């Protein structure tokens, strides 16, 4: 199993770099994972990460993009509630990249 070194601890990740255990997550780890992609997490990035983590807490799955877009629009206004805005923040796709920083697993099945 692959690992990443975080504050002297070895954190297990899967083949695509997603955390194996949600409990290993810490804000500093998100920052470190983003740094690995040459990305500096801003307040705007954290708004998405925090939403993802709250949603996961409630529903045990990462939200669909269209739910993410709608909910972000509700909380942060229509200028942020669109796919373009989210892709500007997370060029590899909000579902993949932001979920990885947020410590959520990838969804599987007919998706």
């Amino acid at each position, binding site marked *: 199993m692959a690992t990443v070194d975080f504050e002297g601890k070895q954190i297990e990740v*899967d083949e*695509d770099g997603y955390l194996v255990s949600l409990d290993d997550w810490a804000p500093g780890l998100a920052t470190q994972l983003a740094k690995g992609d040459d990305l500096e997490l801003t307040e705007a990035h954290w708004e998405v990460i925090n939403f993802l983590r709250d949603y996961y807490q409630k529903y045990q799955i990462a939200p*669909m993009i*269209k739910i993410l877009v709608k909910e972000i629009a509700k909380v942060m206004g229509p200028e942020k509630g669109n796919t373009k805005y989210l892709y500007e923040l997370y060029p590899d796709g909000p579902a993949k990249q932001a979920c990885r920083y947020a410590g959520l697993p990838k969804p599987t099945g*007919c998706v």
Partner: protein
Amino acid sequence: MAKFTAKPKDLINIDYTPPKTEWMDTPTEIREHMFCHATKAKDLETVEFPNIHEWRPQDEDWNLPANWEQIVLQGMQDLLKKYRSFQLFMDICVRCGACADKCHFFIGSGDPKNMPVLRAELLRSVYRGNFTLAGKILKKIAGARELTPSVIKEWWYYFYQCTECRRCSVFCPYGIDTAEITMMARELLNLLGLQLGWIGGPVANCYMKGNHLGLEPHTIKSSVEFFLDDIKEITGITIEPTFNRKGAEILFVTPSGDLFANPGTYTAMGYLMLFHELGLDYTWSTYASEGGNFGFFTSNEMAKRLNSKIYAEAKRLGVKWILGGECGHMWRVIHQYMDTWQGPADFLQEPVSPITGTKFENAKATKMVHIAEFTADLIKHNKLKLDKSRNDHLVVTYHDSCNTSRGMGMLEEPRYIINNVCNHFHEMPEDTIKEKTFCCGSGTGLNASENMELRMRGGLPRANAVKYVKEKHGVNMLANVCAIDRATLSASVDYWVPGTAVCGTHELVANALVMKGEKERTLDIRLEPLPGKEASE
């Protein structure tokens, strides 16, 4: 793993020249982007699969159990005993080659081991060496070979480059079902703990939570409520579906992808709108919340276990019959296995449409009706008010799912529906539709993201046919009746034929459906402005 970056112009250069060495002497190279990750041990533990161990496909040593050879040979013997078809398919192939160029993976890769005849030969050679007299004595001369760890790797690599689509079987003069050969090989690999993550994960989820995605009851409900908000915005109509309702006439079961992945979600909105308009006495279930069956890609026994919840829930709720959504392999399982596994379903009634009175004779045994049959019957009896012009911005073609066409023979109903809800419909070339349909290239649990080159190669023949109708007729929408299709064709069409979208058939129905009390439609089901019907300023 490096990102998949190959461009279509690179992938289209396919070399069909076979290697100079004989196939038995050509080693298998496990190549990046062509295979899926290994499954997580915890998922296999959930369903108590055997020989769970840590391994990675790209590693030299797969940590096979010490007695791996005995496990495989004993497993093979058990399967030969259990399925006469397996023995028959091992014995009767004359290697005529009629199937050789019919496989989408061969067409897209040029790798001779993707010719169905040679892929089967990978298994047959071991069968001959261990279970036939000629093979035991004459060895290689009789086409037999030793079972070695490299053979196991070769099996794993190539039997997960087959989507059990059965197109090759259509052309086999002996009627050999190559999908069944792949199923046997995958059963053997599963005995060694060599499962894929993309299969093991959904299987464990389905076993624990009722569906592949692992959606909890309140997540399912919130997802449907989200769709209802959108429907309200589009039509002005409030819909209140029920969940787990005892005494409903009909239980509705669909793949969970429809509830949580685009463009399947638009298909789900279509179901909700149609059922509301009909005033159908039906219920969703958060327990039987999966039509699909990824267990079918592991072992017969696992498929049976996962399938059992559909009847169990129908019985618990006391419904009369079951209506099933747009899914592919769900229908192969229902049509060809369910009654044998779980039947007779004598606690249900023979399905009768409460709207038209039509008795679905074809569903007499299983008591499960495909929604395309149900809707086609409604249209035939003039029970729906349809405004085709709402789909006028779409030029549609129809992709037959391998399993609904070859697995259950449903060819005309979806076409009948599309022709009644759309003005512009064009068929792809004859050799690529109906019984001869080309697979999406990502079925049987191969719809992961790490094997994207394999998926794009396998998806090439289908995409090529789409390209043909796009250039000839301006096709911009690829309709289908399968959740895997909706998820995977979106990727392959985007890669090979950008500018063509993918949708479920009931999304088109929903666009055209004129509902009682609806407001004037200015948006389509995706909440995009309907061309020609935009809101007036």
